[in-house]
């Protein structure tokens, strides 16, 4: 099952806090797609996920200057 979270309107620390809280509610093996802005979220969200043992499967820029991250719990 793939979940989706848009954090483009969030600012620090709620960017990675919301990702963490969403991942906590998911089962192992499930995937979470996160839409985020460049800058602080793009630097911190993938790093904090990897530090906690989650897999960042892909990290692709979108047409409108944002990024789409795919994380596996």
């Amino acid at each position, binding site marked *: 099952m793939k979940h989706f979270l848009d954090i483009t309107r*969030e*600012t*620090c*620390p*709620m960017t990675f*806090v919301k*990702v963490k*809280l969403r991942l*906590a509610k998911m089962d192992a093996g499930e995937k979470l797609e996160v839409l985020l802005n460049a800058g602080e979220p793009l630097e911190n969200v993938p790093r*904090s996920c990897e530090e906690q043992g989650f897999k960042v499967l892909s990290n692709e820029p979108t047409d409108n200057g944002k990024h789409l991250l795919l994380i596996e719990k």
Partner: protein
Amino acid sequence: MSQPVVDKKKISIVCFSGEFDKMLAAYTIATGAAATNREVTMFFTFWGLNALKKQRGRKPIGKDFLSRVFNWLMGGRNNLPLSRLNFGGASPILMGGMMRKNNVAQLDELMEAASELGIRHFACEMSMHILGISKDDLIDDVQSVVGVATFLNESEDAHIIFI
């Protein structure tokens, strides 16, 4: 063979001042740290306790006349002053509006996230005794009422931040 247990990094935040902006700073650091896999403990003492009162406005809680007056004057989470340029309580309201406009998390949202992230909240026994308030006057997130020795034991190997 089982995986070795890796100790989490620890952060303890002493919330002393209880001002609006400083509580925001404390909860921003706390939630950011907890979301990046750190074990976070918050210790509320003196003015910091006001943010944890169940009664968010000015209520004369307390065990005697003086503590009731004090608690009414200090108020709760809705009455936290700004540490600078408070202008009789007008500035926190304006600041809240500016934060909403810029999609910055409000104190309520940060406190809710702190609860979901499992951040430990301790209240200072000595300050509560002076101010005549009991654990029942505080929000349910407060795990226990402790003294400084317990706080220090629980903060062993932690970075301690005083706000």
